[in-house]
């Protein structure tokens, strides 16, 4: 910044300066997109802008508090409603517990390792969305929980309906989540109806996901539910991801074009949950069954 007001301006002209800074920017762009050179720089700047993001969040939190205050007038009704939902969920949970017990029992009979128990055990941290980018290029959100809250890279992020995305960049007090809809993001999934396994990838559009490389005659229907398969160990199994929206089967092509919409409110939520899996045990558990199945 030029501080002293000079009578005659010295130094390079506007175009020369633009050239220098454009060159610097291009270096940054190439270094960031091709080689991922600047994680420390990103970290440092992330710490610098965190207070600004906090200040920017104040209006939203005030809005939330006012909304809560208004909602507190019909607390009784809400309580009754929630109690009903709780009872309904409770019934399903009881069923789940008995099913889980039965499943473990059956697995024991088969001699397989109890992998489900270790893989589905998750801890959840509630986080609020600090920022969503304006431009359609980055399908990412910033959350207000980071390394200081024991968040780790690669953790799954969900809302009340399904998978939202995955933590891809960590700052001390905040973290970046790549959404399902991001072009470079894929989730291993399974069709609920016939447990067909596949991988669903983002398209860069807000409400579209794509199932790639499924052949034209694949058994998949409109309205099929896709849930995480748990393969890869990033996402816990069985969490809803998307619903199949439309299928175009072009007999001349090799693959069917299958478009689905994410179940979770990928671009609507204020609060999300960050899940952490118990990783090291599950890796052992995944290793074991191969030997076992060989014996069988």
């Amino acid at each position: 910044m030029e501080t002293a007001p000079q009578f005659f301006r010295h130094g390079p002209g506007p175009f020369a300066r633009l050239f220098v800074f454009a060159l610097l920017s291009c270096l940054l762009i190439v270094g960031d997109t091709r080689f991922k050179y600047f994680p420390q720089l990103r970290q440092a700047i992330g710490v610098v802008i965190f207070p600004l993001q906090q200040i920017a969040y104040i209006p939203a939190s005030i809005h939330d508090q006012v909304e809560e205050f208004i909602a507190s007038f019909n607390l009784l009704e809400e309580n009754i409603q929630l109690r009903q939902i709780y009872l309904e969920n409770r019934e399903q949970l009881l069923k789940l517990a008995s099913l889980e017990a039965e499943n473990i029992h059956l697995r024991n009979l088969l001699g397989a390792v109890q992998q489900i128990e270790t893989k589905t055990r998750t801890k959840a941290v509630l986080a609020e969305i600090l920022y969503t980018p304006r431009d359609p290029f980055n399908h990412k959100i910033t959350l207000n929980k980071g390394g200081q809250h024991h968040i780790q890279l690669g953790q799954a992020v969900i809302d009340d309906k399904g998978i939202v995305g995955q933590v891809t960049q960590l700052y001390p007090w905040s973290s970046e989540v790549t959404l399902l809809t991001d072009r470079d993001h894929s989730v291993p999934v399974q069709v609920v109806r016939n447990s067909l396994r596949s991988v669903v990838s983002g398209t860069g559009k807000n409400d579209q996901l794509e199932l790639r490389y499924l052949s034209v005659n694949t058994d998949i229907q409109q309205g099929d539910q896709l849930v995480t398969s748990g393969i890869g160990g990033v996402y816990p199994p069985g969490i809803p991801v998307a619903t199949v929206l439309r299928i175009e089967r072009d007999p001349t092509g090799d693959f069917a074009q299958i478009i689905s919409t994410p179940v979770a409110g990928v671009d609507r939520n204020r609060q999300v949950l960050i899940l952490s899996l118990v990783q090291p045990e599950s890796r052992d558990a995944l290793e074991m069954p191969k030997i076992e199945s060989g014996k069988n």
Partner: protein
Amino acid sequence: MYVPASNWFIAVSLVLALILNFLPLQGDILIFRPDFVAIVIAYWNINHPHKMGMSAAFGMGLLMDVGNTGILGQHTLAYCVIIYLTLIFGRRLRLFNSMQQAPQIGLILLIMQIVIILVAISGGSALPDGQYFFATVTGTLLWAPGSFLLTMLLRQKPDPDAL
């Protein structure tokens, strides 16, 4: 009507613009959110040239890039282009009042958005749809009230040597 601006005032306005950019908006409002930092940078460089150099714009761009979770260098390049354009056309733009300036600023904002799109495409993104350019429209509409506000705030600051 030249009112000198202190560096502090410029810095505070830039930080405020950055906070406005970081507001946690979601859904349809997001489409209309202009780039406040770009507008403020353009204002200072037109009305008080050489107060805010290209390096300051570069720094603001870096902050914006990390906050925006985008490619590093995207907004730095865009803001430097704004500084360049306003340096070249600033003297001409100062002849007009802020209402007449607005469409020309709109053009500068459009060029900035095109720079941002070009960088995004170089990173492998697809072309955005027309909605993306609403930000330029709102930025253009915001120019006159925004520059009026900044000028007013500048004038209101009483200089201690007046009495």
